């Protein structure tokens, strides 16, 4: 083939445009940006804003703290927050806008499992580094492999297995159980995990009622009457937010707590709101290794300062979404810093950051956590039982157990729902010793 002058000129002109696509991205030199833009999707409206707004508040606070100490690698952070309440289609449109128009460098998504299931594939298309900061579904990394997404928290499997193990420890002789969950994906999925695990660990428990009130229900009086008539040994509810508060109050007014042992895996987020209406002896979960009176981290400066700053600004104690947001931001910072160090001090590419985050172990407000090679975060599960103390006008957790991930989380390459069917009663005994609340 003869090389003409025209062909040579065309090739020369096209080379600069083509090179980023021909060369591997991580081989392209990255310029240090003037700021690191974070897109954050969370619920700013609707019932789930009880989690979304505290998550956003935590992001504001921690980003300010990071920026006041030099940002990440000397680059300040700036957040753009979007509301995931209008639905998945809206959220995906917003994610595209953030990636393509706003020049966002990393996404922190989302609260709803449905949102995360949709955002992770989009992140692959857009090559957008994404941290799944709060959604619980275990399916994300079980059913697919993603390069651009990691999760900086546990998932639904340990969040449900840990309360079951705790119940088996404190009330091993229960024979009947009723469930009152919200009628949507989380309510149904969490019950499926619980039922499978319970059938494996303690076969023969009679489920006397499976009640799934409408999502957003404000009246549980019929369910409570039914439960009073049935008198189950245990009542499980994975509900959250206003619905959990309402259920707790209506149940307390009608003395249901006196008849059955309650297991409320998400109730840490409701303690301050329901106050002493929630009696002593209720089994409560925190969706992870965090609580503002965390048994091993409460005296650490990091947690104390955060709790103090958060209370000062928002007049509330931090609840689990604030800790999940903190985990995401601390994880992101650790990932970037490790990638910068590995890159000889130069700013890393997106791929370098995401590759570094797999296997990353990082410090957060209440301890350290690890991200598995499949992108799934591993953290202990804090469980406890409510106790009324003078220092707080709401219940605190007593007899706390931090269930390690190897007891509650399925290994890489397995499906959570299949794995819980293999659990044995021995798992109950393998738990660490409880830690009592101290004033």
């Amino acid at each position, binding site marked *: 083939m003869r090389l003409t002058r025209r062909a040579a000129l065309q090739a020369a002109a096209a080379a600069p445009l083509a090179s980023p696509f021909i060369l591997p991205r991580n081989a392209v030199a990255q310029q240090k940006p003037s700021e690191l833009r974070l897109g954050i999707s969370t619920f*700013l*409206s*609707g*019932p789930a*804003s*009880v989690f*979304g*707004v505290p998550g956003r508040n935590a992001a504001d606070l921690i980003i300010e703290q990071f920026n006041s100490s030099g940002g990440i690698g000397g680059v300040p952070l700036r957040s753009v927050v979007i509301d995931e309440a209008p639905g998945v289609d809206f959220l995906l449109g917003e994610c595209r806008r953030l990636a393509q128009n706003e020049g966002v460098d990393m996404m922190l998504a989302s609260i709803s499992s449905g949102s995360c299931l949709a955002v992770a594939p989009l992140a692959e298309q857009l090559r957008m580094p994404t941290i799944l900061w709060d959604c619980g579904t275990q399916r994300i990394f079980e059913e697919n492999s993603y390069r651009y997404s990691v999760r900086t928290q546990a998932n639904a499997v340990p969040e449900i297995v840990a309360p079951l193990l705790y119940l088996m420890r404190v009330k091993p002789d229960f024979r009947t159980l009723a469930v009152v969950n919200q*009628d949507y994906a989380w309510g149904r999925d969490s019950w499926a995990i619980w039922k499978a695990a319970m059938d494996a660990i303690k076969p023969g428990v009679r489920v006397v*009622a*499976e*009640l*799934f*009130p*409408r999502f*957003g*229900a*404000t*009246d549980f*009086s*019929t*369910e409570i*009457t*039914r439960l*009073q*008539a049935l008198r189950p040994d245990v009542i499980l509810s994975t509900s959250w*937010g*206003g*619905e959990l*508060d*309402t259920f707790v*109050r*209506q149940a307390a*007014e*009608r*003395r*249901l707590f006196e008849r059955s042992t309650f297991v409320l895996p998400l109730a840490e987020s409701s303690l301050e*709101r*329901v106050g002493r209406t929630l009696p002593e002896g209720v089994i409560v979960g925190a969706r992870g290794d965090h609580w503002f009176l965390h048994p091993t981290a409460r005296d650490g400066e990091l947690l104390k300062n955060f709790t103090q700053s958060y209370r000062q600004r928002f007049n*509330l104690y931090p609840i689990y979404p604030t800790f999940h947001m903190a985990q995401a931001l601390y994880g992101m910072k650790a990932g970037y810093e490790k990638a910068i160090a590995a890159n000889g001090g130069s700013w890393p590419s997106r791929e370098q950051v995401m590759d570094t985050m797999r296997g990353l172990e990082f410090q957060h407000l209440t301890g350290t956590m690890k991200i598995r090679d499949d992108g799934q975060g591993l953290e202990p599960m804090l469980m406890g039982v409510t106790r009324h103390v003078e220092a707080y006008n709401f219940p605190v957790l007593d007899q706390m157990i931090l269930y390690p991930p190897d007891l509650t989380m399925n290994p890489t390459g397995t499906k959570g729902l299949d794995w819980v069917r293999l659990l044995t009663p021995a798992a109950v005994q393998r738990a660490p010793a409880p830690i009592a609340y101290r004033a």
Partner: protein
Amino acid sequence: MTLLLLLAVLDGLAYAALVFMVAVGLTLVFGVLRVLNVAHGSFFAIGAYVAATLGTAAAATAAAPVLALPVLLIAAILVGGVLGPLVEKLLLSRIYVKDHVLQLLVTFALFMILEDVQKLIWGVQPIFQDAAVKALGPVEVGDIVYTRYQLFLLPGVAATTLVGLMWFLRRTLTGRVIVAVTQDREAATAMGIDAQRVYLLTFTFGTMLAALGGALASPTSSLVPGVGVNMIVLSFAVVATAGLGQIEGAALTALLIGLGRSVAVYFAPEFEVVIPYIIMVLVLLVRPYGIFGSPELRRV
């Protein structure tokens, strides 16, 4: 079995009472103004929030137990008395003669605005104020603990509202004037009735009923963003099933839905969520204009 049915009926009555309180305002407004008011759900929510706020303030006083119940009524009067005339004068009076679609869009826009107003004022954290329930205390039926609030107060208020409304519309001059405007606005106006005033009065009263529904719901529910959405959807189902503008129909439908839902919780819990809509579909298949509704002749 008999005991279970009795329990289901008691639960159903309390739920039906709340649903009726909201739906009756919606159906009254449609019956007179011919406007399907989506913002009715916001009036419910604001009534609940104001009642909880007043209840919290009252709880801090020495007279807390005495004030717990009156604040619910005061909240409804406040919300209805302020928001009702404001919305009617500024918005609705401009769209009475417009197409129903436009009316729906305007009231939907108002609903969205008021949703954000609620978040601005009360935030997003659940709010709960149960002084009224505590003031009345619990009562036992057999072995089952109920609250007097749920068992007596809610059905009592709903029954009083129904009877009072029927008496007002049929036995008082103002009520008859409202009925006259509902049946033929032009003829009523020709007879010297001030239709605009009737509209203002009716809308304000309808807003008060929605706010009263919210206020009555507030002692047993946590108030969160979106609390009005659920109630407006259910209210529309009640009003459509009853027949638009039918007050007795709203009462009967609310009762059907309340009982249907509680019976479902006892005997087929998986149908609890869909029972109101199954009832609606079944009724509308047989009677497309609702239980008490009738086809309306279009004026050419």
